[in-house]
């Protein structure tokens, strides 16, 4: 049981206590469908949208993400320089009118590289998370639903995954798969499985014993309605929040791996890989180190803000 709590604590890497925080929230008190002061029904899409769109952080996060995605897609048309184009005369030059964010050691325009590089971070973040969600949620649901021996087997299997610090596990997978974009996705995706599986399992176990399920059963609510109306919405909302957090975590991890030379390798303008190259020129051209890092922070921050807002929107109990 303390193990489960560990996971609860780990889940919310750096976030405030929310769903299942420290594994305690779930056990104390139900999270019933309280009517909020607004007329919208908590849990309804309209309510969630209303809550998110009134959260300044989330709006900023969404705007930034949309902006980054658009700029990244349009970067070949918007930027004066290609991301691999060399302007040797301006090599190592700082920000100027010709190169808005300066150039790297080979004279490649940093702005075009950074904008183009966003697609790596976003792709790894999204694809890695998708992989973790599909495998993790399935495993967690199986463990939670069947219980008993199946549950024990799945949980022991996950224990093995959680016997490593996350970065080390990702490094181990990278060592096995080799470097490269899709291998990086696979490594991070596999690393994230245990978190989603434990979260899903804990959700199902928690909801199964909830009073509102008992109440629904006692008023002869059809099983189909209990599953679609109560179990799924309540089990899914923490997962949705975790997805946003996982995307930001994967973005950070992918840059770490690429920085170590295990993820996306140069010359591709992945942000971590750019930083690895810039490291040797830190004394003369600090802009080469600062620019990609700032973009990593913006990207990760946006997903974190959205995740926080989703958590507030999906968990009406914490609205206070």
């Amino acid at each position, binding site marked *: *049981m*303390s*193990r*489960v*709590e*560990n996971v609860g*604590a*780990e889940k*919310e*890497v*750096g*976030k*405030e*206590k929310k769903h299942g*925080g*420290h594994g*305690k929230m779930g056990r104390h008190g139900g999270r019933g469908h309280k009517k909020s002061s607004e007329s919208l029904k908590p849990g309804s899409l309209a309510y969630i949208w209303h809550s998110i769109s009134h959260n300044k952080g989330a709006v900023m996060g969404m705007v930034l993400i949309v902006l980054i995605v658009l700029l990244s897609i349009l970067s070949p048309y918007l930027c004066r320089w290609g991301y691999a184009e060399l302007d040797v005369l301006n090599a190592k030059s700082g920000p100027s009118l010709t190169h808005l964010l300066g150039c790297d050691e080979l004279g490649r325009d940093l702005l075009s590289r950074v904008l183009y590089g966003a697609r790596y971070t976003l792709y790894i973040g999204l694809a890695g998370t998708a992989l973790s969600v599909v495998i993790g949620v399935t495993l967690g649901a199986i463990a939670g639903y069947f219980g008993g021996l199946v549950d*024990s087997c799945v*949980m*022991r299997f996950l*224990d*093995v995954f959680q*016997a*490593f*610090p*996350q*970065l*080390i596990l990702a*490094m*181990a997978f*990278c*060592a*096995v798969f*080799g470097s490269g974009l899709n291998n990086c996705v696979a490594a991070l995706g596999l690393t994230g499985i245990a978190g989603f599986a434990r979260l899903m399992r804990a959700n199902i*176990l928690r909801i199964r014993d909830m009073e509102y399920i008992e109440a629904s059963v006692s008023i002869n609510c059809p099983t189909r309605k209990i599953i679609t109306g109560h179990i799924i919405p309540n089990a899914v909302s923490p997962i949705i929040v975790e997805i946003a957090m996982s995307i*930001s975590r994967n973005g*950070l991890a992918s*840059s*770490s791996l690429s*920085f*170590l*030379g*295990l993820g996306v390798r140069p010359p591709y303008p992945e942000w*971590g890989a750019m*930083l690895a190259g810039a*490291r040797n020129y*830190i*004394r003369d051209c*600090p802009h080469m*180190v*600062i620019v990609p*890092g700032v973009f*990593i*922070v913006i990207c*990760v*921050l946006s997903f*974190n*803000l959205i995740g926080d807002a989703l958590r507030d929107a999906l968990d009406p109990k914490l609205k206070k």
Partner: protein
Amino acid sequence: MIRYVVKRLVILIPTLLVVAIIMFTLMDFVPGDPAVIALGSGNHTQEEIELKRESMGLNKPYITRLGEYLGNLIFHFDFGTSIVDGTQIKTAISDRFPNTLKIALGSILVTIIVGLPLGVRTAVRANTWEDKISLFITLLLDCMPSFWVGLLLVLLFALKLGWLPSSGVGGLKYFVLPVIANSLGGLAGFTRQTRASMLEVIRSDLVTTARSKGLSEREVIYGHALPNALIPIITIVGMRFGQMLGGATIIEVIFSIPGLGPYLVNGIGSQDYTVVTGGIIFIAFSFAIIMLLTDLVYAFVDPRIKAQYVARNRKGGRKDE
């Protein structure tokens, strides 16, 4: 209590064994013939490669090699030798691990010393400007990759101001920047978690009771709220410590500190799979031990767990692990 310790150990040992088996197996399936890697670059005749395979014991079936590896690991704590340079992995790890541990320990100390008071204070003054500034800063720090923070610190304190050395090992001052770089992200998260844990207790009935008894605010916060909030924080400290052990690896690469990080990264780069297997198994072991200690301290401190465990035992062990 002893039962609880035994139970945790019983879960831990097979897990570590499986970790070792999986790592060995994974590395066994990695493309690239270890014999060729061991021979180094250049062209080698088929006989040379065969001889090398023979001497490295690669011709034995997988299961025999796995058995030998596990045997050495369990009885001698021996990870074998590096494929590339033939050095003892055990010696390399025991030379390097102290550096990694120093960084991780320093980071967790900084985290606790700064994060705990900050978290408590912001919880007590929730929604004031202090709280909002702290939330904003921690949110931002949380999003910064530790290696980037490390590079910025080097840029500012080593290259521009020249106050601290940018790389290598030596006295205490060589560890200042690595420890700060490694702890900032975790520190931010820890502060927020402490604040959340503290807020939860402050809003609970026991604090209302303490106030209604007429205790001073100081006594309420430090005498009643804090001890209760600390219990979940113990687990968080353990988790953070484990993460910082992992995070130290990347920090070591930036600050050129001869710890486990560069050892692993170089091992992966040069396809030295025995080094990678050994290093990762070792880190998993240390991680597991930290987690075990955390759980034990937690169980020891929180009477609820102890009581629950005793009660569960009496009922005949209903498992919800």
